[in-house]
């Protein structure tokens, strides 16, 4: 397998492919993986720290035995066909030996050449030799051949001289590598629109006009101003900041892009919220067109930003006035609702730039023999956007078109699913397993603790006196070895730690470094390499919790670091070896919901060789798609659906149960037993995983005369009538569509995402049938995100009238004798418009399926406040549930169109197969256990455990609590309820914690 592009989408694709047992080459042209996501400060709509959630994935890739990472590498040539490609790669010289470099940054300190830092969008300086960013994987230096004095003029070799490891190799040559792969996933991502080309809004000449990606770096703690918001001209904290939306998007002028970039509205809101978080009195103004808050929880996010004090959202086009000579402030001209054009001064202007195809897309397309669309993005199948025009070459992420992080992750998992289907026979053949040395039994030994104190380059060492911490640690009870480490996590240091464990016979290891939340898995691995149980390890966090937060109090910080190490050492002596539990996996899958999402998932999973039971509540398969006839792009939905249903029924591994309902669920990941009632009979299905694809429903409007007048229909009803070419529809003189019926309200505070495009689709169909028809769309914001924008423009060009209304002044519909009268108040012109119409179509909200509540309880998976299923992580686990073994796709997750549903269905299938291709599942050993002698069977623990992991069991000493280690999630709440201390959470026992308390 070849994955091209190491951004979040490529990373996810590589991990999912490697997880199903395929060998993966992950190729990235830059010196480190991470892509654009690594440059973001936070992510919407949760404001999660982007790097913190992404960097563990870097390490996962780095350590995965089935993934070979090739950074600084480009594809030269691709030959062959699906199943058997020969790919030639060019490994560009990095002038640093990757295997030797420890990432110590000494070379960086000595390098005399300062260059703009590409990671910080050129807002700060770095050196010709540098590490791409501080959490980079691989964490090794890179020499920029364009600016290095030696590589340009053979003038300097300082770096080679100062490198203690002789890792610098200025004579490295490019290397051609040929690899054989069965399939390819292209995840090259996107580029941001460059406003300098046209000098939009003075960008390039006015210093205080920055792009949103530059502003992202300005916000970031690792950015040019270390997280302080300063402006480029004078480093002052700007108090008045303006954002200008749609820069390079929704523009049909030369050099602009006609499509909507889909992510800018939300990222701007994020930047506004973060700015206000940094400095509460900043005045933030966003100049926007439509607010496209179409994603899950985006509507609330928008409200959160808009309701902050000092924040204004102004719907207006903007032009630059002037730069004020002394202050270098900038004036913007914009139109207002009542006061004409206004000119206002701002200290910083942020351009919310759109997404463009990657600059090298044409070359990439030529090499891989794929086609691009008119915009320069990857041309895909209109309904399966993961398929390119060439068999065996798949596309994920924003190369499909503008996409946010979860969509990129979903399409990555989906691409893995499609590759898995293509290469099902190859699965596991080339897969490698990590082999660890046998575990030494140390139960009879006294604790022998080894302490490793990490400098983390200068991150710790600059503040905490590391040698003095080492000396202190060496005198603590049970400590037999203590030493410093420059980067404990670097590959060679980790190796050295493992060697020391063996050489000195250590049976406990304490590493004083950074946070266990990111590095514990890595060091546990190191400890395993050293031949002892991985739970004999404790991490003392002296970076995030010490050197970084007490950087001005070096002595105090050193004292605290010693105390933190003391706590860890004390705790480590009590640690017990724990066994992770290997559970067998039932290699069958239950898919709930026989709509397009469920069927697509089921077929792919079956195509990869797993038995699937597909459960549908209705008598027929098809779900909501049975009511759809066309897509915006013109695909024939009914034909597609019929073919899909046929494939489902014909697939020998897919078993369909219609008229079916899930009645009971027992078990857990790998081993579920579900009771299904189908056509009156009850069946028990054993399965290892489940996909929830229960879809959504159409809201029945209670307003606008719906249900009272036959002339008022929903958009879906209109579509059916258009498909039947009903006379009443085709001959209508005038049709009015009213958007946002039943959503974006207090009761349903979300956007149904699909209705704007649906309205446009129907309007275009009607215009096609009857070009003279008068069509009016009454909308709040037109949310034709992505390429849908182009159809919106087409509709407008064909004479469809778009009139905005506000929720305060909703349109009114009255029945006349032979028609309807619609009254609407134009919010700008303030005049009352009356429209006579033969038909009114309502964009009725998409509402959660009526079965969601019950399923949520059965599978113990949560719903969000709107009643849609809540995924495990909005950004990085979009089709997983927090409960293991349960997956999610389609409109059960949130409203989405057919192509998005199909993509997510493949995504869920990819995740399911990732789970089922393993023969066993490893569950953590840090779960509860019961000291039966102390248990009084009071059931206090049982009443606290929402996982139902504890049961009373008959023993020789009577009834005693018993923990099912597979169900126990290790939160430990039961421990605090137990009056006798009988139940204990391994790895966090009372004794271990009290010991830490005493050592504090």
């Amino acid at each position, binding site marked *: 397998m070849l994955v091209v592009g190491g951004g979040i989408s490529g990373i996810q694709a590589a991990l999912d492919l490697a997880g199903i047992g395929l060998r993966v080459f992950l190729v990235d042209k830059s010196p480190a993986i991470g892509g654009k996501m690594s440059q973001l400060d936070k992510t919407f709509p949760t404001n999660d720290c982007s790097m913190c959630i992404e960097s563990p994935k870097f390490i996962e890739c780095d350590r995965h035995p089935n993934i070979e990472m090739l950074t600084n590498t480009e594809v030269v040539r691709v030959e062959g066909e699906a199943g058997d490609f020969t790919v030639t790669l060019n490994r560009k010289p990095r002038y640093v030996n990757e295997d030797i470099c420890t990432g110590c940054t000494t070379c960086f300190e000595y390098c005399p050449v300062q260059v703009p830092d590409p990671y910080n969008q050129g807002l700060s300086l770095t050196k010709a030799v540098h590490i791409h960013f501080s959490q980079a994987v691989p964490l090794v230096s890179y020499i920029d051949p364009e600016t290095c004095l030696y590589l340009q003029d053979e003038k300097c070799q300082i770096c080679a001289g100062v490198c203690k490891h002789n890792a610098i190799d200025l004579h490295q040559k490019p290397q051609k590598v040929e690899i054989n792969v069965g399939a390819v996933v292209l995840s090259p991502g996107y580029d941001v629109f460059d406003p300098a080309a046209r000098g939009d809004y003075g960008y390039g000449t006015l210093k205080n006009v920055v792009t949103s990606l530059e502003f992202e770096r300005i916000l970031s703690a690792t950015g040019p101003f270390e997280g302080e918001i300063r402006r480029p001209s004078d480093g002052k904290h700007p108090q008045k900041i303006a954002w200008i939306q749609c820069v390079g998007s929704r523009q049909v002028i030369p050099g602009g892009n006609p499509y909507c970039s889909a992510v800018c509205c939300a990222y701007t809101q994020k930047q506004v919220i973060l700015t206000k978080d940094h400095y509460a009195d900043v005045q933030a103004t966003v100049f926007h067109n439509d607010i496209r808050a179409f994603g899950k929880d985006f509507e609330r996010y928008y409200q959160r930003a808009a309701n902050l004090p000092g924040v204004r959202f102004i719907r207006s086009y903007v032009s630059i006035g002037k730069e004020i000579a002394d202050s270098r402030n900038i004036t913007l001209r914009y139109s207002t609702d009542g006061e004409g054009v206004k000119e206002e001064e701002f200290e910083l202007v942020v351009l919310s730039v759109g997404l463009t195809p990657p600059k090298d897309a044409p070359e990439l397309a030529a090499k891989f023999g794929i086609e691009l669309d008119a915009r320069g993005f990857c041309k895909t199948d209109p309904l399966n956007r993961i398929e390119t025009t060439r068999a065996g070459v798949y596309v994920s992420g924003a190369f499909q078109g503008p996409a946010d992080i979860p969509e990129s992750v979903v399409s990555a998992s989906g691409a893995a699913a499609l590759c898995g289907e293509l290469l099902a026979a190859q699965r596991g053949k080339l897969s490698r397993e990590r082999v660890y040395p046998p575990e030494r039994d140390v139960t009879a030994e006294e604790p022998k603790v080894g302490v490793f104190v990490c400098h983390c380059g200068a991150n710790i060492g600059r503040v905490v006196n590391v040698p003095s911490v080492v000396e202190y640690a060496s005198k603590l009870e049970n400590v037999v070895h203590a030493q410093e480490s420059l980067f404990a996590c670097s590959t060679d240091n980790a190796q050295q730690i493992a060697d020391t464990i063996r050489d000195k016979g250590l049976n406990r290891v304490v590493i004083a470094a950074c946070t266990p939340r990111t590095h514990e898995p890595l060091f546990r691995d190191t400890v395993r390499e050293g031949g002892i149980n991985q739970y004999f390890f404790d991490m003392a966090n002296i970076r995030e919790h010490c050197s970084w*937060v007490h950087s001005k109090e070096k002595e105090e910080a050193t004292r605290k670091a010693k105390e933190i190490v003391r706590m860890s050492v004390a705790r480590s002596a009590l640690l017990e070896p724990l066994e992770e539990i290997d559970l067998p996996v039932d290699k069958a899958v239950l898919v709930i919901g026989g709509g397009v999402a469920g069927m697509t998932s089921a077929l792919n999973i079956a195509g990869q060789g797993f038995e699937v039971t597909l459960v549908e509540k209705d008598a027929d398969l098809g779900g909501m798609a049975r009511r759809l006839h066309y897509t915006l792009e013109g695909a024939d939905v009914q034909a597609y659906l019929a073919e899909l249903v046929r494939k489902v029924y014909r697939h020998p591994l897919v078993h369909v149960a219609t008229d079916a309902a899930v009645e009971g669920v027992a078990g857990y990941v790998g081993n579920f037993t579900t009771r299904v009632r189908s056509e009156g009979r009850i069946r028990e299905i054993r399965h290892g995983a489940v996909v929830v694809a229960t879809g959504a429903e159409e809201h029945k409007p209670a307003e606008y005369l719906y249900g009272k007048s036959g002339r008022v229909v929903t958009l879906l009803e209109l579509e059916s009538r258009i498909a039947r070419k009903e006379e009443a529809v085709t001959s209508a003189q005038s049709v009015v569509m009213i958007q946002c019926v039943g959503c974006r309200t207090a009761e349903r505070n979300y956007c149904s995402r699909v209705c704007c495009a649906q309205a446009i689709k129907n309007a275009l169909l009607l215009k096609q049938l009857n070009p003279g028809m008068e069509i009016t769309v009454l909308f709040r914001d037109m949310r034709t995100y992505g390429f849908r924008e182009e159809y919106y423009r087409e509709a407008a060009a064909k004479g469809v009238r778009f009139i905005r209304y506000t929720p305060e002044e909703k349109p009114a519909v009255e029945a006349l004798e032979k028609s309807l009268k619609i009254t609407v108040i134009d919010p700008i012109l303030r005049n009352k418009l009356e429209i006579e119409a033969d038909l009114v179509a309502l964009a009725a909200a998409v509402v959660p399926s009526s079965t969601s509540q019950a399923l949520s309880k059965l599978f113990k998976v949560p719903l969000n406040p709107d009643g849609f299923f809540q995924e495990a992580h909005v950004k990085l686990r979009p089709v997983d549930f927090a409960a293991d073994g349960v997956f999610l796709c389609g409109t059960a997750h949130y409203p989405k169109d057919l192509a998005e549903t199909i993509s997510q269905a493949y995504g869920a299938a990819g995740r399911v197969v990732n789970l089922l291709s393993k023969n066993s599942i490893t569950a953590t050993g840090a779960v509860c256990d019961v000291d039966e002698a102390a248990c009084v069977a009071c059931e206090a623990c049982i009443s606290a455990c929402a996982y139902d992991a504890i049961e009373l069991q008959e023993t020789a000493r009577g009834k005693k609590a018993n923990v099912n280690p597979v169900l126990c999630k290790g939160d430990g709440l039961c421990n605090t*309820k137990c009056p006798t201390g009988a139940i204990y*959470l391994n790895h966090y026992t009372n004794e271990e914690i009290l010991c830490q308390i005493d050592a504090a």
Partner: protein
Amino acid sequence: MQPEFKPRILGFLCNWCSYAGADLAGVSRYQYPPGIKVIRLMCSGRVDLEFVLRALANGNDGVFVGGCWLGECHYITEGNYDALSMMHLGKKLLERIGANPERLRLEWVSASQGLRFAEVVSDFTNRLKELGPQNVSKLKLEAIRKLLPYIKLVEREKLRVRFESKGEYEKFFASEAVNRLVDELIADKLAVSQIMVLLGTQALSPGEIADTLGMAPSEVAKHLKSSARQRLVRFDVEQKRYALA
């Protein structure tokens, strides 16, 4: 001049939100006073009252508990609600032994609230500075600790509540009914527990007991009488002192 008082705080943070928030404070370089040290637990619901008592008995000036915001717990057990109950109950018990309940503080800090973590720690430190060094009697803390199994039973039977908001918990625990309940079910036991712990060190006269524990002599007499009836203590006629039975 006396050296500046720098409060020592022991923090218990849940892995998923508040520990991550503390990490983010680090990543973002938000500075806060170095008096706090942190123990990582998987869930704030894992924080046992015993940990709080032990931390105070060890001389920490304050105990901090950090959890996920209500509704955002990583676990479906939603242990942060229980942590909130634990905190309220803990404060009540601390009050009963004459300790300032403000020395126990619980805050929600999400994984994205690095700044909030730094602010909360700074604020807590400042408050503890105002309160001065902690000098709660170890004996009294031990008296509560001994009662914990019983307190857990009372909590399960009478105080296991689930509200949506922090305010509702505050209202509930400040209510007359809860105070009466604590008085009726716990106060007496706590007094007896203190007497027992004290007598565990040496035999004492009722007057000495009253002085040491700061209790009314009549109250001491009442508890000694009932404890003697239960044969927990005995009166040494010769020494005119009470001792453990």
